[in-house]
């Protein structure tokens, strides 16, 4: 809150000093709050900075707190726009304007030294529930499977459970992680680990030389292309949410997110912009 206050003070101060005596003719500064998914937040944050650079009267604050927070905040009017990285339930979506801005895939990852290349959905289910206890049941690697699961409340967990038709209590986790980076680090430190993270995060880690590998699922290699063309099976949409009819500021943000600059931001963060996908 302090930051918000400080920024608005700063903004009005700059506006005053720039406009001087003609300050009465300057357009009013809008403070705009976006809350929700930490996966979507970097996109909106970067786009917001671009908007603020060209339009100093538009002040956008981006706060993370998970998809559910974003949805609840939007329907109760505690923000101007929400962010979600999971599909809204019918009762949640009621009265909201839900717009898909990008796609993200969730990839299964293992240690780089693990020669296993691909898994079927049934094998994934077996590994995470420890019905399959050793890697040699699914490939050339030997070793007791170490399961890395996501913490409760994270959209990635919900998408994963839903895709494989699992309940969280059936997963026999050896470690529970908060953010994607923690999952990548854990899997890279254990030759027998299996986990799942956002494809973008995994590709980014591999490009930095982190010792993990992506596992193909049901014969499809996870990549930005296979997520984009819809062939990779675990794809989720990234949404922005508005509470009502879009006003001028909502439009301004949305147009920028969906425009060429927004799409470039989305690609640079290793997500797939909607316009490029079927």
């Amino acid at each position, binding site marked *: 809150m302090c930051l918000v206050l400080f920024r608005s003070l700063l903004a009005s101060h700059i506006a005053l000093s720039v406009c001087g005596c003609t300050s009465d003719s300057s357009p009013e500064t809008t403070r705009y709050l976006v809350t929700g998914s930490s996966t979507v937040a970097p996109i909106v944050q970067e786009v917001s900075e671009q908007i603020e650079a060209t339009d100093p009267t538009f002040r956008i604050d981006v706060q*993370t*707190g*998970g998809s*559910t*927070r974003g949805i*609840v905040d939007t329907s109760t009017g505690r923000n101007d726009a929400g962010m979600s990285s999971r599909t809204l339930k019918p009762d949640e979506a009621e009265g909201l304007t839900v717009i898909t801005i990008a796609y993200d895939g969730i990839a299964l990852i293992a240690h780089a030294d693990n020669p296993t290349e691909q898994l079927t959905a049934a094998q994934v289910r077996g590994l995470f529930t420890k019905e399959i206890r050793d890697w040699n049941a699914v490939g050339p690697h030997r070793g007791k499977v*170490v399961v890395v699961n996501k*913490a*409760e*409340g*994270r959209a990635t967990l919900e998408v994963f459970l839903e895709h494989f038709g699992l309940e*969280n*209590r059936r997963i026999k*986790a*050896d*470690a*529970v*992680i*908060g953010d994607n980076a*923690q999952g990548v*680090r*854990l899997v890279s*430190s*254990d030759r027998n680990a299996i986990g799942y993270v956002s494809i973008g995060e995994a590709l980014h880690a591999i490009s930095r030389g982190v010792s993990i590998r992506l596992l193909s699922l049901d014969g499809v290699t996870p990549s930005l292309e296979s997520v984009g063309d819809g062939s990779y099976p675990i794809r989720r949409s990234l949404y922005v949410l508005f509470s009502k009819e879009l006003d001028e500021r909502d439009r301004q943000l949305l147009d920028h997110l969906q425009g060429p600059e927004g799409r470039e931001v989305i690609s640079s963060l290793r997500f797939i912009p909607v316009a490029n996908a079927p």
Partner: protein
Amino acid sequence: MATPTIEYVAEERTGESRIGWIALGALGVLAIAMIPGVLIYLLVTGSGVLDRTHLPTLFSTEWYPGEEIFGLVPLVLGTLTTSALGLLIAVPVGLGSVIFFRFYSPASITRLGESTLGVLSGLPSVIFGLFGTVWMVPIFGPSLLVAGVVLAMMILPTFAMLTLAAFRQIPKGTMESGAALGLRREQMIGRLALVVTRPRLIAAAGVSLTRALGEALAVEMVCGNVAAIPDGITAPVRTLTTTLVQEFEYATGAHREALHLVALAVVLLAAIGATLAVRMASKQVSS
């Protein structure tokens, strides 16, 4: 309730110190009121899960917020086991090193040791978490063991500094009369120094334990965060505080309320730990 007492005391003072008394008294009351204030806030905010459907789940061994099952047992157990392990390592190691610095090492080494402990006790806990992540997790996996060792590293400097201070305050005459009686160095340490300082050593252990109970960030990096009863020292555990770190920001509804009770449990455990330490320490003094 407390204000009349302050007024009464203040009346015995001269006029000019009266305002000072009231101001200081108010600060004192504020300090005391903070504890019940925090407890009441947490209890009220978390009271939504104290109803008939959720209350019984608090005592279960399962933590599945998605199913609205909020078993605190594995979390409390995780907090207690990691802290106990940390204390179990930190106390003997800390005591040994301080005895060495105080009674055996040459003055230059003692100075070096004391200033090192000072620096270590000021390190943010996340540094120890990083150490555990990089050097221990790849070998042992995220586990009770690594969490305990990380906590031990974190609380050892605090415990050692307090122990050192206790040893420094031994009256000079005590040790001199010991020497005059012809006690050997081991006897001077075992029968004099450790006996005289025992209440303060217990208090030092209590302070260290309280720090360990409340640590969140460093533990979250290395404990594995699996909410289950650990079946061995290399099994993953989840503590009360790591649950808050991982879930609070993402929790809504009953889950969020349950997390307030988790926070309440941390405060209560720390309070119990501190009270026990003070009790034991004062008992030692009177006996």
